[in-house]
């Protein structure tokens, strides 16, 4: 079993990307379950993801990167025992820091489970991400195996974008979510290639 953890700032498009990815996974004959972490007391994204007809476990009451990280480890263990899917997809809150999440699973997760981290970046708010939101942005892309550049139709990445990402996330593979990758099968194939899934 592998765990794919999605992070990225609020409103970057994580839920939409995950929705497409699930379709790609299911079409490819893979099984998956979702853990959905939201900060607000009202669950909205889980209503959207339930449309995909896969098991969705909501985690409320805090952020899995810090406040309720123990609940995340427990939820993963429970899904592993009860459903044993090929993949567990975790959607972190948009304020979650990603750079400690691998370590969390290394320390407290079960042995043999591989974890990959994906950060979705909203290009339409790029200038805010790298200035006013730099603190959280650095901790998000800095902990990602793969960075997905989203909303590129609003603002296309430039050479400077890739240069900045090489500085802030030298470990990450950068993927531009262009029109072709809106296809669920293509998205799954690309992520599988980039994150060795």
């Amino acid at each position: 079993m592998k765990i794919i953890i999605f992070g990225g700032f609020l409103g970057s498009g994580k839920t939409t990307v995950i929705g497409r990815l699930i379709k790609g996974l299911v079409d490819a004959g893979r099984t998956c379950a979702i853990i959905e972490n939201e900060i607000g007391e009202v669950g909205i994204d889980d209503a959207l993801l339930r449309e995909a007809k896969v098991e969705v476990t909501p985690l409320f009451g805090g952020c899995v990167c810090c406040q309720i990280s123990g609940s995340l480890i427990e939820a993963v263990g429970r899904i592993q025992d009860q459903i044993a899917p090929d993949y567990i997809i975790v959607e972190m809150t948009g304020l979650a820091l990603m750079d400690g999440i691998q370590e969390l699973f290394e320390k407290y997760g079960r042995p043999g489970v591989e974890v990959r981290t994906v950060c979705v970046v909203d290009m339409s708010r790029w200038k805010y991400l790298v200035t006013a939101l730099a603190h959280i942005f650095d901790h998000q892309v800095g902990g990602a195996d793969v960075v997905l550049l989203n909303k590129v139709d609003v603002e296309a990445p430039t050479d400077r974008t890739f240069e900045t990402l090489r500085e802030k996330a030298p470990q990450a593979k950068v993927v531009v979510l262009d029109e072709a990758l809106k296809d669920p099968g293509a998205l799954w194939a690309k992520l599988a290639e980039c994150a060795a899934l």
Partner: protein
Amino acid sequence: MHDHHHTHEHGPDCGCGSGAHEHGPDCGCGEHAHEHGPDCDCGCHGHGNSVIDDALILSRSGTVRFEKPLRADSALDALVRKIQEICEAVAVDRVILGHVKALIQCEAGQAALSITRVDAPDVTVVGAWRDDAAVSECRLSLNILSVANTGARESVEALVAGLFE
């Protein structure tokens, strides 16, 4: 048998084995660190995300009533406009450094709303939606999260309260 008497001060490091102190995570002897865990709250793990503590986070669910029944598409438009007004209160240059999300449930079906730029609300229909259904009220779930203009909490709360009246 020779009765050996200690004269040293017993303590965690004395090693004589006779004066074992009460071990515990807080005893400070350093020999038996407690079992660290992500939720152990010892403060040693570097967990704690101040961004969350400082953010404006507001959630509300309830019923929104319309003065007169509206077609579902008009009701949705009216609701989006009202939520855009709330977005203005936290936006910077009409961009939200955060996210405003809503789930709208009514006779027509379910629709989700996502706003990161005030001028570009993104409405996604969840399942089936009938534009021509007559809607007199709807169930609205609203999440507002912002890391900017957090001082606007009171005015945002007032606007949100007005939405549900």
